[in-house]
């Protein structure tokens, strides 16, 4: 958006003058002038046009041959005919050609009714066929992946899916095989197409050749309604359209928003809807009575909760999970800090940065919008693997590198997909650096030094860029050196003068889906709404300890599962057990909520109403698309009800009114309303939001912490990472279940060799604090020799079981006593599939 606009020119299409920007494609210019030119292969999201389908041929005065309007840039004074006899004949011809081999099985085709081929055949075709010869045949439909079926007879070979795989996702798995009329779409050796973004090809397909395994035959277009909302399963917060049939979500489609997702979705967001209608979801408030939970009315449950929380006399803490809306987070902190008279409200697993540093990082002059990444000349990704933590950002970065030639630099503990070798014809990743687990602050401080001296190539790529974007993961500032890392990030921003760059700046990837919104709504241990100062409270770990020691007596777990996701799971179990009163809200039952005294059913993002804040500061509205199941209801309403019962009448009767309260309290969101946020969101940095309070971070005291000791002989440093599929979403959605990973320990080839283990070997990983877990070995050639990596949040053997360990030893697991001999599936096979 920030690119300079080109001069406006005028062209004539079918005798009508159309004003447009110079150099845009004729098809797009015509569309802006309300002239539709049919296309199949053209999709600007996929990059440069290929001109393959030939559907968009038009006549241009002065050019003897008909031209494809998708690939012809407009020039001033161009005179174009899209409907004369010559063009009509060509359009008829192309439709006829496309139907030579198309089965015309529309009555039984999933695409029927929303099919571009149908629409274009009706609109631009002859309406009758001259073809009497047999059509080509393929075995059909066959699985292209566990999630997609392919019907090659219906395929019109428009190239879109293949281009997506090769030029957008860059997984390079889809190929055109064979040649000429025998061409078909497939993968090497018929391997399943498994890639995190592959669901997009279903939506790209202009015919019924690629269909969603989960949606096939579930509905016809006249049975369904679209409902626009925002996906809150990760910080990407992609804009989605829910396909609703009979009050249930049966499909998720992208809702193009260039500023957020470019129209793409990851498979988690696309297929993660089956859990909405899961029978395992509690659908009513519950209260504990006589040791067991029983269903209760909302009034009874809230009454019960109010009583339990009041009895703690201020010794109450609340932890807000990443799926909460801004409204919920605001109300929770207001309840805790107000009627409950506590200071202990926090979001996320880690201690918060000092308020001033947090405000400095949120400085609007350092902020970049997501679409500005397109314009960056250099992108530094530090301490995050976007593929796993914010998938759509990965595509955005790849786009900047592939199409705009941005220099990509990566610095992480674990190798990422972004630096996994570059494809032919793209510049790829310029340089990737690895630092030891937990050493992000050291790396950043060194980098600041390098940038000052300007000697290394790595630093030069940054200093030489007119616009540099530093994408950093929240984990960088999470550890004991978090403050130093934050200071180094700010120093780096100052050295690079990011504040003075048009499209350069800092871009944080929060650990939680609405991490930024929760923080900015005030659910943070040291800041209130709008990052204003608040009296200091406890971090999650301190809350845990205080519960165990009895300093805290009651706990609110808001859509969060510390036993599964936070460090020290056993201590968390004890702490929650020690709590006198626990109020929990969650979508599914979980380990942390087992002993809850009051449990509230949490909403999915298809039911919720509220706002969330994108990592770039864009507020977006989550809109209710389907009714709440059973007796479940809006959580914001539960919180206003609870607040009232505690003596603080908020006066808000709608989610919008709760947002108005937040807006009044938060200088960041000043002036924003549900209307101004609208359907595509609004960035607070662009709508008059401002930071109040000191922003000088100041150099943290203490200097660098002592370097981690070299691991003892035979020991390895332990790194952990978040895996996209290691959470409840892949477990609760049958379609995605096959992606849910078992614990694997990633080792370098040399390490595996020296340990005498190979891919799939089951091992015991033992930390230097004597804790251990079981895992399968995965040998990865880009892992450094002295490190191993474990996955956080797996169903069993999650990495947090080892929390506190900095090094580990690995030994082959003794064979477990086999209950039943199984034949034919070795562990190796299990792991690879």
């Amino acid at each position: 958006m920030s690119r300079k606009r080109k001069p406006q020119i005028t062209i004539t299409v079918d005798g009508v003058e159309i004003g447009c920007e110079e150099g845009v494609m004729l098809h797009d210019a015509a569309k802006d002038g309300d002239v539709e030119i049919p296309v199949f292969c053209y999709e600007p999201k996929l990059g440069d046009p290929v001109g393959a389908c030939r559907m968009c041929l038009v006549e241009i005065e002065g050019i003897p041959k008909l031209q494809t309007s998708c690939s012809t840039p407009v020039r001033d004074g161009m005179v174009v005919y899209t409907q004369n006899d010559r063009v009509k004949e060509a359009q008829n011809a192309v439709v006829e050609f496309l139907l030579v081999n198309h089965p015309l099985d529309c009555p039984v085709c999933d695409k029927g009714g929303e099919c571009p081929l149908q629409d274009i055949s009706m609109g631009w075709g002859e309406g009758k066929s001259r073809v009497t010869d047999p059509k080509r045949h393929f075995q059909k439909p066959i699985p292209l992946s566990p999630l997609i079926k392919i019907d090659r007879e219906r395929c019109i070979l428009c190239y879109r899916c293949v281009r997506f795989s090769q030029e957008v996702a860059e997984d390079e798995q889809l190929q055109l095989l064979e040649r000429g009329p025998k061409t078909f779409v497939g993968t090497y050796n018929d391997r399943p197409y498994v890639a995190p973004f592959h669901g997009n090809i279903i939506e790209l397909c202009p015919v019924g050749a690629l269909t969603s395994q989960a949606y096939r035959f579930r509905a016809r277009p006249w049975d369904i309604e679209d409902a626009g909302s925002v996906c809150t399963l990760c910080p990407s917060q992609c804009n989605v359209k829910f396909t609703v049939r009979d009050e249930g979500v049966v499909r998720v489609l992208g809702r193009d928003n260039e500023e957020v997702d470019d129209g793409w979705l990851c498979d988690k967001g696309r297929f993660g809807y089956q859990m909405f209608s899961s029978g395992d979801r509690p659908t009513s408030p519950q209260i504990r009575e006589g040791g067991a939970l029983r269903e209760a009315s909302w009034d009874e449950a809230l009454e019960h909760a109010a009583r339990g929380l009041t009895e703690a006399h201020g010794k109450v803490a609340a932890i807000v999970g990443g799926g909460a809306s801004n409204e919920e987070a605001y109300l929770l902190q207001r309840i805790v800090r107000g009627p409950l008279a506590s200071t202990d409200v926090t979001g996320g697993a880690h201690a918060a940065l000092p308020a001033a540093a947090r405000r400095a990082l949120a400085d609007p002059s350092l902020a970049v919008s997501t679409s500005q990444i397109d314009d960056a000349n250099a992108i530094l990704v530090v301490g995050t693997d976007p593929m796993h933590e914010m998938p759509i950002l990965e595509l955005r970065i790849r786009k900047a590198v592939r199409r705009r030639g941005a220099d990509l630099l990566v610095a992480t503990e674990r190798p990422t997909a972004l630096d996994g070798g570059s494809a032919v014809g793209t510049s790829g990743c310029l340089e990737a650096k690895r630092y030891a687990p937990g050493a992000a602050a050291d790396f950043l401080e060194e980098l600041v030094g390098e940038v000052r001296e300007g000697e290394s190539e790595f630093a030069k790529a940054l200093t030489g860029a007119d616009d540099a974007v530093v994408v950093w993961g929240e984990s960088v500032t999470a550890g004991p050196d978090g403050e130093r890392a934050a200071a180094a990030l700010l120093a780096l921003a100052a050295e690079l003068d990011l504040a003075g760059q048009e499209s350069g700046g800092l871009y944080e990837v929060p650990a939680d889906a609405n991490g930024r919104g929760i923080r900015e709504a005030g659910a943070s241990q040291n800041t209130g709404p709008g990052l204003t100062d608040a009296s200091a409270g406890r971090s999650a770990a301190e809350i845990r300890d205080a519960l165990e020691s009895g300093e805290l007596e009651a706990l609110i777990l808001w859509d969060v599962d510390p036993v599964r996701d936070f460090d020290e799971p056993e201590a968390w179990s004890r702490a929650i057990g020690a709590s006198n009163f626990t109020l929990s809200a969650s979508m599914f039952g979980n380990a942390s909520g087992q002993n809850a005294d009051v449990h509230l059913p949490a909403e999915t993002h298809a039911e919720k109403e509220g706002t969330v804040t994108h990592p770039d500061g864009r507020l977006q509205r989550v809109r209710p698309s389907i009714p709440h199941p059973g007796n479940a209801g809006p959580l914001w309403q539960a919180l206003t009800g609870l607040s009232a019962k505690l003596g603080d009448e908020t006066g808000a009767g709608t989610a919008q009114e709760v947002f108005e309260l937040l807006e009044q309290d938060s200088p960041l969101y000043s002036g924003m309303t549900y209307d101004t946020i609208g359907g595509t969101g609004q960035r607070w940095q662009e709508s008059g939001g401002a930071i109040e309070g000191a922003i000088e971070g100041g150099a943290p005291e203490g200097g660098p912490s002592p370097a981690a000791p070299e691991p003892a002989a035979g020991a390895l440093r332990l790194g952990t990472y978040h895996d996209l599929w290691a959470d409840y979403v892949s477990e609760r959605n049958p379609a995605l279940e096959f992606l849910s990973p078992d614990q694997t320990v990633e080792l370098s080839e040399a390490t595996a060799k020296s340990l005498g283990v190979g891919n799939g070997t089951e091992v015991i990983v033992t930390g230097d604090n004597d804790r251990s877990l079981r895992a399968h070995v995965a040998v990865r050639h880009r892992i450094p020799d002295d490190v191993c990596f474990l996955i956080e949040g797996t169903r069993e053997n999650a990495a947090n079981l080892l929390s506190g360990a900095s090094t580990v030893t690995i030994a082959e697991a003794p064979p477990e006593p086999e209950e039943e001999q199984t034949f034919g599936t070795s562990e190796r096979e299990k792991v690879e599939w």
Partner: protein
Amino acid sequence: MPETRMLFRHIDDPELRTLEGYKRRGGYAALEEVMRLREPEELLSELEQCGLRGRGGAGFSMGKKAGFLPRGEMQKYLCCNADESEPGTFKDRELMWKNPHQLIEGIAIAGIAADTTKAFIFIRGEYAEVGDVLDEAVAEAYEAGLLGEGILGSKETVDLVVHRGAGAYICGEETALLDSLEGKRGNPRLKPPFPAIQGLYGGPTLINNVETLMNVPHVVNNGADWFKSFGTEQSTGTKVVSVSGCVKRPGNYEVELGIPSRELIYDLAGGPIQGEVKAWYPGGSSAPVLGPEELDLPYTFEDMADAGSMLGSGAIIVADESVSIPHMALRTARFYHHESCGKCTPCREGTNWTVKMLERVVRGEATPMDLDIIASVQENIIGHCLCVLGDAMAMPVASMVKRWRGEFEETIAKAREAAPAPLDTEPAIATPIGVGA
């Protein structure tokens, strides 16, 4: 009229293949002269003035094309298109096989003129032995300092790599050639941008046919005026013509452009085997087919175009009276059906549909109405495709259906009488004798 041998001079001398033999017969004199005396600008204008037109099929002015390359500091490329795959065309094979150094000399000179320091010869995979000959010659030239950095002690650099294709006709299309050379699936690219602006690896690229480049040393040695003294005003120089099909002496003949086509077929190639010439492709199998009426036309780019066909790659395929035109049309269509890359709709589906219809024609399962559909499908292909492969089938097929429609109708009727075949079996179709491979 005898041949006029320029490229074919000494062609049958076995020593010509070696560097020493080539030099002894005046080889590399042009390159040496370029090093001593000529500026690139001067070379370019000479190449344009001489009127040399591309010998690969399109017939575009070589000098003009070279002039399209932007000047300035950037990596530019030269690709010699040796993917000679057009049915009936086999001139480049003989030229490279017997006279490889002339090609290398031409590439070096063109490379200097157009400032393309990296050059490739993209040779079709089936020409394995010719590729070996080129490899040897290139190694010899490097050894002698005629290629590589500092040619003949100057500051000029032309690196040359011989790259073997994988045997796809489409890779002779210049942009598909580039994709294939880059290691991708050999599919044509959208034009513009033209290769001269954005070609191999995104750099400006000059792509020329083997024969075109082999003319370059002669232009340099003798000057544009001398070159123009051969041929006609619009078709200068000589042309190596591959004559094949139903002729008594098939082979390559180098003639001055403008000689009557009849002389090529009857005098040089010995005339038809059975009876008279019934039909002939003047420029490879993608040229619209001409009949006996056009035999006296001068063999030039312009006369062939005026007759509704084209000189193309200069390959004459002759059909005598023994040949069935519908079978020849089917054979032609099948070739393009097999070689279509499948990227664009009209070519992919059009070749496929045409073959199915022509098969019905020769099986006797078609009606004269199908001939109308065949003709209309060809019209729908021509000019609507991404590259010219679709046109390459549609033009000859359309010309045959139009000119010999009566024979198509007779064939349908006869086939139906001879074998009222059940619809579910496909009778074998005899390959007609004498149609170029």
